Each structure stands twice: as C-alpha cells, then as structure tokens.
C-alpha cells in the first residue's frame, strides 16, 4: 500500500511517501506564491524517487498551515495530530513532541499510540519561531546556516531582548556597536528563543521522551540552547523537517485501510 503525506508549511512544502508503512522517499519545495503548485512539485519529486506515479497512491493526507491548498488530497490532519503520529513512529517512547517551524512553534503531548492529548502553540508572534533566527542572522550579518556552529564557540551569552523580533534586531545592533563577539550574540539569540520555547513546553508539562522536530531542529545552536533550558535530553530524528509530512502519511495508512 502506498500513502503520501504532504506538509504545506509557510516556508517549505514537504512530502513523504510510505510503502506499507515504511518511508521510501521524500520531496521538498519552497512554498512560494502558489502553494498548490509547490506541493505538486514536492510530491512529484518524492514519487519520482520512489519510481511511483500518482495512480499507485492509495491515500493522500495533507497537513500544515496551507493544508487546504494541497492537490489531490483525500483527507487532512491537524499539525499537532501529525506531529504526535510522527513522534511516536520515530521514537517509540516519545510523549512530548516539540515542533519549531519557520513561523510557528508547537508542543504536543501524546499517548503511546501517537494520539494527541494536549498541545500549546506559539503563533502570530515571530519571536518563538525560525523567523526569529533568520531576522537576527540578518542583523548580525551571518549566514543562517553558520549561526548554530558560531554560537557553539561562545562561552557565555550577551543579554538581548528576544521576546520580539523588532526589539531583538535593535538589541543585536547595539551589541555589535558595543563590540560584543558574534558567537556570544549568536548564543544569546538561541538562548532567548529556547527560553521562550521551553516556557511554552513547561505550560504543557515535560513528559519524557522529548522529541524535537521541524526545520529549526536542524540548527545545532538552537538544539544546544534548548537542551540547556529544558535540562533534559532531546531526541532529534534524522529528517526533522519531514516529521509533519511523515505524520500525515502515517494517518493516510490508517485511513486507506478503513476504506
């Protein structure tokens, strides 16, 4: 049985193809202007890699903030539902899944079947999401992908106001003028964001095992800060940005069987 999960995020669209419940391929495209087209691209790429065509697919489930724009979707699943499914599939003992994306962050509590029990969301504020790191990297004049490794060189963090992107930008400029070192500023940026995410997770309750997914999970700087703030180990899958799409594809398996 072939199922496809599509995660239509604010920055990228991800697709995962499952064959009998196991991952066979992945595809990704920038969200751009036309989400439907981008989603089609991501799905095509994944199917091509798996040497399959759309006619082979039994069920397509979409998730993500743009889920209603998904092409050929048979059903949809909430982002939290998809996170929970993927978390337990990837790490059997996962009970808390933290998903940090480009414009939103979530924490989901789930049971041993990967069913969502409770969740908290940081939305409508850029300070708790990938957009924050991007904006700060711009202010610091450091490439986004260099931010994490740079921050790991710091021994301490310079204090910044990280509760708002707009204020954070001014703070970073002030620190640069004060000639604080870039690694220390970078670490402060991650610490501040991790602070925000960890307080969000604490509202939900930290149940081990804790899994971190979403594009920001690939940033070593953020991961190091989050581990420090939560004082707990955080599990990260090999392809964290595909977790939403994976969760959707897993839901598609169940739904295909029902039909």
């Amino acid at each position, binding site marked *: 049985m072939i199922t496809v999960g599509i995660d239509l995020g604010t920055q990228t669209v991800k697709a995962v193809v499952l064959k009998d419940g196991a991952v066979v391929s992945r595809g990704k495209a920038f969200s751009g202007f036309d989400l439907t087209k981008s989603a089609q691209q991501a799905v095509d790429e994944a199917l091509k890699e798996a040497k399959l065509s759309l006619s082979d697919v039994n069920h397509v489930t979409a998730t993500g903030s743009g889920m209603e724009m998904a092409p050929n979707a048979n059903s949809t699943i909430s982002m939290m539902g998809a996170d929970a499914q993927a978390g337990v599939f990837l790490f059997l003992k996962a009970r808390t899944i933290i998903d940090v994306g480009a414009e939103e962050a979530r924490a989901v509590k789930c049971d041993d079947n990967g069913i969502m029990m409770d969740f908290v969301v940081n939305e409508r504020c*850029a300070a708790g999401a990938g957009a924050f790191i991007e904006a700060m990297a711009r202010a610091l004049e450091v490439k986004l992908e260099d931010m994490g490794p740079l921050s790991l060189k710091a021994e301490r963090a310079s204090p910044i106001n990280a509760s708002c992107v*707009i*204020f954070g930008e001014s703070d970073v400029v002030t620190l640069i003028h004060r000639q604080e070192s870039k690694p220390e500023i970078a670490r402060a940026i991650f610490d501040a964001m991790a602070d925000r995410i960890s307080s969000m997770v604490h509202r939900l309750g930290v149940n081990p095992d804790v899994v971190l997914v979403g594009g920001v999970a690939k940033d070593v700087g953020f991961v190091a800060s989050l581990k420090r703030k939560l004082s707990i180990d955080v599990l990260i899958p090999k392809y964290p940005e595909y977790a939403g799409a994976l969760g959707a594809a897993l839901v598609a398996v169940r739904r295909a069987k029902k039909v």
Partner: protein
Amino acid sequence: MKGTPEKEDVEYWRWQEYHRIFSEKKWKNKDVITAGVDVGSVGSKAAILIDGEVYSWGVMRTGSNSPDSAKKALDWAMEGTGLRVNDFKYIVGTGYGRVNVPMANKAITEIACHAKGANYIWGPSVRTVLDVGGQDIKAIHCDETGRVTSFLMNDKCAAGTGRGMEVFADLLKIPIEKIGEVSLNVEEEPPPVSCTCVAFAKTEAMGLLRKGWSKEKVLAAYTHAMAIRMGNLVKRVGLEKEFVITGGQSKNIGIVSRIETALGVKCLPMPDWRDNGLDPMIAGAIGAALFGKALYEKAQKS
C-alpha cells in the same frame, strides 16, 4: 542631482527633535525649580517646572547611551533659560532608562509620572491614560489627583508601539510625522492586517503591496490593527472617562482616531503643542518634575 539626498538615505522614521521655553515666565533663585527627565527607549524628554508650572522642555531621540541621552535632553530643556544644574532643587528620572539618569535625586516609574503629567495637562477629570511609547503601551487608571489606581502594560512586543510604526514608515517610505494623515487618506477603511506581530505584519504588508494595494491602504490596514490592539488593552484596564493618550503616538492622528472608533469615545482635545500648548509626549517628564517638587517640599518640612 547634486544636493538631493539619495532616496535610500532618507530616514523615514526620524522625527523632529525640538525644545520650547515659555518666555513670558521668568525664574528667580528662590523659586522651587524642579526637572523631570523621561528617558524612553526611543525618545528622551526633559521638562523644567517653576513652582509646579511648566517653564521649558526638550524632546530628543534616545541614543545608545542612557546617561548621555538624559543629560542631553536636560541640557536642551535648559538651553536659553540661563539655568544651571545647580539651580534645580530636585530632579526626578523616569522612563525605561530612569535608573541611568545620573543627575537625578530619585527615580520614579513612568506609569506614576504619566498619570501625574496627564492630570497636569488635561486637568483633574482625566481617569484613563493610554501611554503609547516607543517600546511599550500602558493603559493607566487614575484618580482626580493623578494618582495611579490600576494599570496594564503590553511590553516585550512591538505591536502598536512607536517602534512598530517606525518600521512601517521605513517599509512604506513615508515620513513618520506624516504617517497618521497618510493612513486616513483612503476612501474606505480596509480590514485590519491579520498579524499583530510587526515582523509578520511586514511580510503581510509586502504581499498586499504586491497585490496592488496603495501605500495608504496598507498603512490604514496596519494602523487599524494596532489601534484595535491598543483599544483592547484600554478595555481590559477598564475605560472610564475622561480618556487621553500620551506618548509619541498621541501625535499620530491615524492611531488616535481609530482608537476613538474602537472604544466609542472621544479623547480630550489635544493641546496645540506646535503652537503654545503642552506636548502630550512630555507628560512623563512633567509628572516626574511635579513629583520632584512634592519631594523637595516634603524634605524641607521635615
């Protein structure tokens, strides 16, 4: 093109720094001369009072160094008055940088100072003060003496603050002092932008511009959203008439008129600060100087 600045060099966020002396008033050594210095995140304001009456003030942009900004603001309020720092009986620092006012005898929170200052500017009927500063918004409730009875604050978020407005002025390339009028220059009020976060609203605004919306319409949609946010803060603290707005955004007619619509009340009339009236932006500094007078007199009695 010699002499004309490059387009990109224009600083749309920059507002006019100025100072004022009520020259009909004269000071004498025996007078109780006090000063209030309000070091905000964006603007630094200093007001000088003679026997509790406003004599002069200065308004300027806060630099990266709070003590310097405090000193400069006070120097500017003193310019042309013949006053020296030694002439002050008491100086009170307030605002975001209040602990960094080196010449101050005491620091008092800006919430207390704004309520006191609003009471001075508009009189004892004022009950609700919305102070919209550079970096935070405060809704304050006060009694007929200008004493704070309750307050709510929105900080750590640029939405609705002066700083957020500066970001939009820059984005749309509209001088900050024109932003209010420009936002009202629409045939019909557009729906508010959906994002309150300034970073996201910026992205949303760029999308709207690409869709062919005029700058005026985009600005109206943003201003509308911010006014709703500020109005909600006032509702939460409890709106009681008379209602006034202080801080830099009190000069933004686009914000003020939309808050009035959102709350269904009119603010007390704005003093004509451009001519010979008091400036609502210096309410905090006036309040601080008034506290200075009270503190000085208390010390004299004991």
